[in-house]
């Protein structure tokens, strides 16, 4: 496939891995990939097991589904079960557990819950069902927030009054800060989020090297992108540099997407604080609809319980999201908590570290190496 296969070339991958080994000089390095999309790529292509053993990857908080706290899922289910409501959601959120059930179960109980691929689909459903209230469950970082914003602008322009948004958009920089502040974590650098950076650019990360002395390389989502960004990180460390670099130059500009940032500014404003699954409340980390779009805010249109629910005791999503423990080190991983019966959000989304490890990486480095013996065709 053009524009995809080039970034999966095994010969180029072998060269990159060798170079990482040479440049890192065998020194143990621990890098966090912030973005769930990267986690998914790393496991799907088996990158961890082909890297030199001295390079360790820890999986960060950038999975939009994983960071939604239980209370917000309960609120979503409550909205979905209000009479006359069509509740629309990305498929990923359907299986995320609230305190007593999930959206898929709410649907089975009779709620009209529909899976959409874009908030614009939700708006179309609203236009096709003028006698029903259509609520869109908005989640995600700066990556998906612009499409929610554009949908709201369109709803306002077209005067669609039976449409509203249950806003759970979050921003990437505050949790990054929280992780850097976390005392129990030692990292040598960051693989910076790619999609988010297409919107916000590279400038917002400058505090990472400036204040915390850690290098950050914004990376694309193909396996070679990841390897190249690791190579750039080990180069920086070897050369004694510490800066923000851009590996994903084909998509990310330093200043980001100015038009998208502008529309985000019009449609959203920062909440004073927002609760993150496993990370607790983080100041100025969540978005809500601005005054100008308050009429489309589901939290104002409907009564939303807004009860804070504590994470289940056994669940260690927070430590996984901060990269303090590996998924398999969680007490309930793979036994009480599996993709079929998830306790924590990290086990639901394909971008969640636990689900990615469970689905793709559930074998040791040695087993992976022995399985890599080529398949004989005849």
């Amino acid at each position, binding site marked *: 496939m053009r524009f995809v296969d080039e970034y999966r070339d095994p010969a180029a991958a072998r060269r990159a891995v060798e170079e990482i080994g040479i440049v890192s000089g065998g020194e143990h390095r621990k890098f966090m990939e912030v973005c769930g999309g990267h986690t998914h790529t790393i496991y799907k*292509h088996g990158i961890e097991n082909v890297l030199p053993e001295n390079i360790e990857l820890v999986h960060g908080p950038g999975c939009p589904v994983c960071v939604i706290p239980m209370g917000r899922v309960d609120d979503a289910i409550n909205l979905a079960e209000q009479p006359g409501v069509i509740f629309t959601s990305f498929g990923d959120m359907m299986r995320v557990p609230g305190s007593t059930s999930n959206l898929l179960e709410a649907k089975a109980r009779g709620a009209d819950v529909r899976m959409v691929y874009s908030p614009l689909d939700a708006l179309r459903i609203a236009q096709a069902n003028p006698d029903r209230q259509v609520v869109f469950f908005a989640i995600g970082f700066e990556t998906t927030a612009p499409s929610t914003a554009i949908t709201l602008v369109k709803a306002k322009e077209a005067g669609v009054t039976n449409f509203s948004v249950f806003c759970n958009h979050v921003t990437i920089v505050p949790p990054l800060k929280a992780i850097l502040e976390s005392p129990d974590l030692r990292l040598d650098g960051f693989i910076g989020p790619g999609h988010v950076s297409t919107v916000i650019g590279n400038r917002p990360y400058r505090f990472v090297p400036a204040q915390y002395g850690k290098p950050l390389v914004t990376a694309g989502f193909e*396996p070679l992108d990841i390897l190249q960004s690791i190579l750039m990180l080990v180069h920086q460390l070897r050369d004694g540099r510490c800066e923000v670099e851009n590996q994903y130059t084909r998509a990310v500009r330093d200043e980001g997407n100015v038009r998208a940032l502008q529309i985000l500014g019009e449609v959203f404003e920062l909440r004073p604080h927002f609760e993150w699954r496993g990370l607790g409340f983080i100041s100025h980390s969540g978005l809500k609809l601005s005054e100008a779009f308050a009429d489309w805010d589901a939290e104002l249109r409907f009564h939303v319980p807004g009860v804070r629910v504590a994470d289940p005791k056994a669940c260690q999503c927070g430590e996984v999201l901060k990269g303090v423990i590996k998924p398999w080190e969680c007490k309930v991983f793979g036994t009480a908590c599996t993709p079929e019966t998830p306790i924590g959000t990290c086990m639901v989304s394909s971008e969640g570290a636990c689900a990615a490890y469970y689905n793709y990486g*559930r074998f*040791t480095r040695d*087993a*992976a190496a022995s*399985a890599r013996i080529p398949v004989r065709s005849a």
Partner: protein
Amino acid sequence: MSEAAAAPDEPEKDFRKSEEEAVLERIERFRRNRPRLRDDFINSAHGAGGKASAALIDAVFVKAFANEALAPLTDGAVLTLPSGERLAFSTDSSVVNPIRFPGGSIGHLAVHGTVNDVAMMGAVPAWVSAAFVLEDGFPVAELRSIVADMREAAANAGVQVVTGDTKVVNKGSADGLYICTAGVGVIPADVHLDARSVRPGDRVLVSGTIGDHGVAVMLARGELGIEADIESDTAPLGGLVSALLAGAPGTRWLRDPTRGGVATVCNELARDADLAIILDEVSLPVRPAVNGACEILGIDPLYVANEGKLVAVVPPEQAEAAVVALRSHPLGGDAAVIGEVRDDPPGMVVINTGFGGNRVVDMLAGDPLPRIC
């Protein structure tokens, strides 16, 4: 994590490694237990052919009907007549939405789905039943045309529709029409297909490009706003099976990778044979358009349904002959060896990626593309 763990301290690392291994072993033991049904209400995952389906089948159907013929839980039952002859008997319901899609209709699917299940038992499909659930108000002209598709499909498959039933339900109680079929065929005396006969070293083959049907139906719904020239592969596989068994008489096992795709049938094989299936990503035949659509949708073609393909396991010395036999048939032109059976890791499917790494290929918990068959 302590700093000691991060430092390249050998004993500490070995300890962590063995700890990870212990966790993985515990998970593997858990995974081997058949999934338990925990839901109080049916949801779409129960019909997806993955773990939730298995849980429902175990907890409700097997519990109620338990018998020897049902026990293997393959796509059809093998029944031995007093004469010693063996019949393969299978049933299938078609609820696809939309009822017409590029490459076929619900009528083709209703016949092919059943005759292919019979063919995968090694039998020559002969007779089919058809029961129709019709929604009040469904156009007769539409029904005629669907039934014409069934007639065409039956003729191509060499089977006769020999009995049937018709029910009409209130408007809103069904979505147009649903078709339930059952099929019977005779298994030739020298054919014995069984997952338990699979051995390490055996090769895994697929008869052609994967994922065509699921993607074609999904795009035909028009919800995704993606247009691509992809047709369903719906086809009767009896002839292809005969060609394969003639060319590679030692064939151990056959399955048609419908719901849940090649990944799911390989997982069922790995579990039933207690062996590892190692797949080679580069060898998987996937149409560029299907690959492109899957890439955009974030789904893996390995999990997407096929309606005219088979996965076969053959002994290594017959692998080449099997590929030749499949390719000589009009439905097997893109046949390829896609994997190998090994001892380790037992019960698991692993794919070596084109990029040079590898990953586990597990059964899906739910279905990425509902109501495609």
